[in-house]
């Protein structure tokens, strides 16, 4: 049984297609993050799961039950919003129990739930306050509390941390993570922040233009991006994508770049499909953090490059090198001194590379 299943779901606003044949499944207790740039359809998808938007095609199942035409209140879900959406005229207590009162839960049960949740979230001293008398972090906590008291099957979070300042955001992120660890509830979480996605999710679905680009664990998303969009979207700075060609001989597979005086051997690369590799136009992807200043592994490939630009950011520095007239970014500890406009020896960690077909832009 899947806690949430989305099947061939499409949605359009007028003539604009927002979601195109989305398929998605979540197991009990998982934390799924929908990640993508603004306008990719992630919030629409969340609203559809909540029942706040109608569906043009496809179905949504919760616990194998088709809820596509079920009202939001009957879907056994709870949602936390970016603006918190606390009812301004009600105090914290009334805010938290509003849903239970609508559902005609008994008074004793309501009190019991309220006490349990408000203690758990440490808002029990704020119950008589109005939302306007709370700080940002407290509001967020009350909003989460309002979702918790209903004991829903699925929690939906719509960019809940975007309105907080940077420091508080990191704190609340940890709290949400703890919350999930303790309660083991199923969560769908929408964000455009990759750090949030990476640190919170057990699964991440990366979306772009209404299509899920990759739905995988954070590790696989980082290490084995399934296409150039994912490779470029995740990581800061993002993955270097160098355009070149493959050359296959009987014993060797080489990556060559026009204008470079060396070829990179990629024999150890784990190809998904080894047919027709010779002369294929590809992107060679390597993350800035996988380019080393000192040889680290035996297989590391040595290159000589000239540095054009240096960006110092405290604990590390980002250097831009000229790789046969293509930009190549590398990240080093800031203790290392590298001179600009001079050849520097660098080592590519070939176990960490990704290769993409230059035409289809997907991983090979």
């Amino acid at each position, binding site marked *: 049984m899947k806690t949430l299943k989305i099947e061939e779901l499409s949605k359009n606003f007028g003539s604009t297609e927002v979601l195109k044949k989305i398929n998605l499944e979540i197991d009990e207790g998982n934390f799924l993050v929908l990640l993508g740039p603004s306008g990719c359809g992630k919030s629409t998808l969340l*609203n559809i799961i*909540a*029942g*706040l938007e109608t569906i043009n095609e496809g179905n949504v199942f919760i616990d194998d039950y088709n809820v596509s035409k079920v*009202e*939001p*209140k009957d879907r056994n*879900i*709870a*949602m936390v*919003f*970016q*603006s*918190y*959406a*606390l*009812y*301004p*005229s*009600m105090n914290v207590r009334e805010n938290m129990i*509003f*849903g239970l009162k*609508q*559902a005609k839960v008994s008074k004793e049960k309501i009190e019991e739930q309220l006490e349990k949740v408000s203690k758990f979230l440490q808002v029990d001293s704020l119950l008589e306050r109005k*939302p*306007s008398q*709370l700080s940002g972090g407290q*509001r967020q906590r009350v909003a989460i509390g*309002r979702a918790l008291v209903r004991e829903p099957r699925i929690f939906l979070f*719509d960019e809940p941390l975007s309105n907080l300042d940077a420091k508080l955001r990191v704190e609340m992120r940890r709290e949400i993570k703890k919350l999930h660890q303790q309660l083991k509830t199923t969560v769908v979480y929408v964000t455009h922040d990759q750090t949030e996605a990476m640190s919170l999710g057990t699964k991440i679905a990366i979306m772009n233009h209404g299509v899920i680009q990759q739905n995988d664990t954070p590790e696989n998303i980082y290490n084995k991006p399934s296409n150039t969009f994912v490779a470029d979207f995740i990581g800061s700075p993002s993955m270097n994508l160098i355009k070149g060609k493959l050359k296959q001989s009987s014993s060797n597979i080489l990556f060559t770049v026009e204008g470079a005086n060396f070829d990179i051997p990629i024999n150890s690369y784990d190809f998904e499909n080894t047919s027709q590799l010779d002369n294929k136009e590809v992107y060679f992807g390597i993350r800035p953090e996988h380019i080393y200043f000192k040889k680290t592994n035996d297989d590391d490939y040595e290159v000589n490059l000239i540095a054009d630009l240096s960006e110092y950011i405290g604990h590390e520095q980002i250097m831009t090198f000229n790789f046969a007239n293509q930009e190549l970014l590398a990240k080093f500890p800031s203790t290392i001194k590298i001179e600009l406009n001079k050849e520097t020896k660098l080592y590519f960690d070939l176990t960490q590379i990704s290769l993409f077909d230059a035409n289809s832009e997907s991983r090979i």
Partner: protein
Amino acid sequence: MQDNLQRSSYEQLEQKSKYTNMFLRWFLYFVLILFASYFIFPLYVMVVTSLKTMEEIRQGTLLTWPSSLNFDSWLVAWGGRGYGAGDTFLRPYFWNSIKMVVPAVFFSTFIGAMTGYVLTKWRFKGDQWVFLFLLFGCFIPFQAILLPMARTLGALGISNSVVGLVLVHTVYGIPFTTLFFRNYYVSVPTELVKAARIDGAGFFKIFFKILLPISAPIIVVTVIWQFTQIWNDFLFGSTFSFGEAAPIQVALNNMVLSSTSVKEYNVDMASAIIAGIPTLIVYVLAGKYFIRGLTSGAVKG
């Protein structure tokens, strides 16, 4: 030596700017007082004249202070002289106006709030056209609809009645009240409505429990606006009612213009003030909310 010279010139400059500032300040007060008197002058004349006897009015000038405070003309304006035919006085028409203005303000405000709520929080296909046509209602000259409205009231059997006037004022208030409430609700985050829907609240519950409790500022603005419009209306009142069903502004007109005997300026003035008092009271009671409601709009968190 140099320093001393410098300092004395600074002191001179300081002195000079002090005098300039003082002069400008007094000039500002002078202008303000001038304009204030210009605006308060008619009111002064009205109040003073209403307190004089006809004798005094004939002998003195407009500005002369009354010899004694004489409220007789106010009593006459309100309750008449007590003889039968041809004695027009304001009391019954004042209550006509109250009976008209209270329901008309209530219904137009309520319907406007509801329409504003639907237009912002329950968007539907073509809603912007509905809003556009409602806005059109704000700008249409009321003279243009007198005839069709008269026919409609006749067909409904409520012409020349307070009920008819309530209907007319409610209908023609809706464009304005909708505009007010729509603009206010636009700034209320729609996520509130979404949260309430997930919590299981329906269309009316969301309106009454979530939105109305935070609408106090705009309700005050709308009530003041509608009250003033409806209370001071003469056009609809004089067209759609006559005789006993007339509102106070029509009665005032009849009193002042159609008296056959000598013009009683003191009674006229007293009547005019009585007809204006309710709006003044509403402004004094709710004025500060009026300003607050016009300037604020956002409900933050």
